[in-house]
């Protein structure tokens, strides 16, 4: 992300008006490698492909912000790997992290990993260090410390149904699990900031927060999100494209000031639930419209969304979730062009 894009992001978060409205997309392994002509496994294993694919996307759509920007990731396996989770790879498939806890009781045996040494985390850091000179030569900086959120990591360690059941049947053990995961997350975020002083944002992704009631969110999500986001950075960005109605009113108290959400709710609803205190990034349907629709469908969806809003402050137009697999160049261009045309 270059300085102009970063400053735009910060201004939106602060509630400053923009004309035209900014657009942004979360880009990562589900979309980027295939779009750029590579397999997902090649993208994960080849630094050059990783750099070239990111630069290709940034240069193809210079008017938009690609978030979090040069995200060194191994899909869902990154953080679970530090806990000893087996990572499963396919040539052009999303990697999968196998669970490590066979029962809630095994939480007692779980040790906090060292982000400097365990799993794939050193590889994440080294990749960015190796590429940092070229990233900066291209006019960009590494701006975000990135991780999966505490509930998301916990759900990979236990299995999602098992974790969600266990918050009902073994709440104390699940608090212990979330404690260990969050202690690790705080260190992982701190380590990323230490290595890359240009980082001034935290980006956490956690759909599991959307699966629980407000009461469970208050007990099992909020305290851990508050700790994970406690560092003093300017942008605290959260992605949850599962339903958000229960969690949305709580997110500000976790320090979150930028939210990418799904298509279950309208921008207007989300503005209401967050008291317009959190900048919103959304929410054109990613799969049905951005990936599978025509450019005309995209333009229509953007027009419909923008015309439904009286207040366009704290808004970044994007899709409701990360950039979906197979989203074609012409549809992305249609989104950007329509926003420019309607909000200039």
């Amino acid at each position, binding site marked *: 992300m270059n300085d102009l894009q970063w400053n735009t992001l910060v201004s939106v978060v602060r509630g400053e008006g923009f004309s035209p409205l900014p657009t942004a997309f979360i880009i990562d392994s589900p979309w980027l490698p295939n779009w750029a002509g590579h397999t997902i496994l090649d993208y994960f294993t080849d630094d050059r492909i990783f750099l070239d694919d990111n630069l290709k996307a940034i240069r193809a759509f210079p008017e938009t912000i690609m978030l979090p920007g040069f995200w060194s990731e191994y899909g869902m396996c990154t953080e679970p790997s530090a806990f000893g989770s087996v990572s499963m790879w396919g040539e052009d498939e999303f990697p999968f992290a196998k669970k490590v806890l066979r029962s809630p009781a095994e939480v007692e045996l779980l040790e906090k990993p060292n982000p400097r040494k365990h799993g794939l985390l050193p590889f994440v850091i080294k990749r960015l260090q190796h590429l940092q000179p070229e990233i900066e030569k291209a006019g960009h900086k590494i701006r975000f410390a990135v991780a999966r959120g505490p509930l998301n990591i916990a759900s990979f360690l236990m299995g999602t149904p098992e974790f969600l*059941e266990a918050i009902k049947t073994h709440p104390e053990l699940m608090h212990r699990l979330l404690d260990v995961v969050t202690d690790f997350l705080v260190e992982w975020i701190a380590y990323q900031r230490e290595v890359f002083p240009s980082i001034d944002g935290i980006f956490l992704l956690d759909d599991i927060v959307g699966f*629980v*009631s407000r009461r469970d969110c208050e007990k099992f999500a909020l305290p851990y999100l508050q700790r994970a986001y406690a560092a003093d950075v300017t942008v605290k960005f959260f992605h949850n494209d599962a339903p958000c109605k229960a969690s949305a009113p709580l997110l500000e108290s976790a320090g979150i000031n930028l939210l990418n959400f799904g298509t279950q709710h309208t921008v207007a609803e989300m503005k209401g639930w967050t008291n317009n205190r959190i900048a919103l990034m959304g929410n054109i349907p990613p799969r049905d419209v951005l990936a599978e629709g025509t450019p005309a469908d995209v333009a229509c969806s953007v027009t419909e969304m923008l015309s439904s809003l009286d207040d366009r402050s704290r808004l970044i137009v994007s899709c409701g979730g990360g950039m979906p697999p197979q989203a074609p160049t012409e549809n992305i261009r249609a989104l950007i062009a329509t926003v420019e045309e309607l909000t200039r």
Partner: protein
Amino acid sequence: MLRQAVIEGDVPASVSAARTALEKGVQPVDLISQGISPAMAEVGRLFEEGEYFVPELLMAARATKEIFVILRPLLAQAGSKPMAHVVLGTVQGDLHDIGKNLVAAMLEGGGFEVTDLGVDVPPERFIAAVKKRPVQIVGLSALLTTTMPAMKTTIEAFRAAGIREQIKIMVGGAPVTSKYAETIGADGYSETAAASVDLARRLLAV
């Protein structure tokens, strides 16, 4: 008592209530039709209305599952027939099971017999399950956009095996839409686990 225990996802209370009812002479089939099915329908309603969330759904499903451990041998002994036999699985390449597990529990609670083939199920295993014993519905689940095409592959495999017309196929999962279901030749799509019971009934016209 049983109904409320299932709705509240209280597993021990549900099992205890089921045992008590059976001891009092309530027939297993009545326990399902008058206790479990309405309870799971209520759980589904509460989920649809945003009062229940996934953990509550899972707990009710767990309660139902535990009751069926007791009921299954009694039903077999009595020669009771389930409403229909459903074979479920997450399609090949996909290791996610939450949606499929919820659908299994909702269907079982709704009076269907469910054979759960698990995750990463190749087409030939679905076909083998249908050939092994009478099956009315096959349910295919996928959580990933990349594994959705395996639903189409599986449906085509049923066609190639000459048994597509014997069964109804329903599909679901986070990235799946009704449009996609139609495109790949499925008979039905359910957006939520709770709605899968109604869909299964509609497909069988019961």
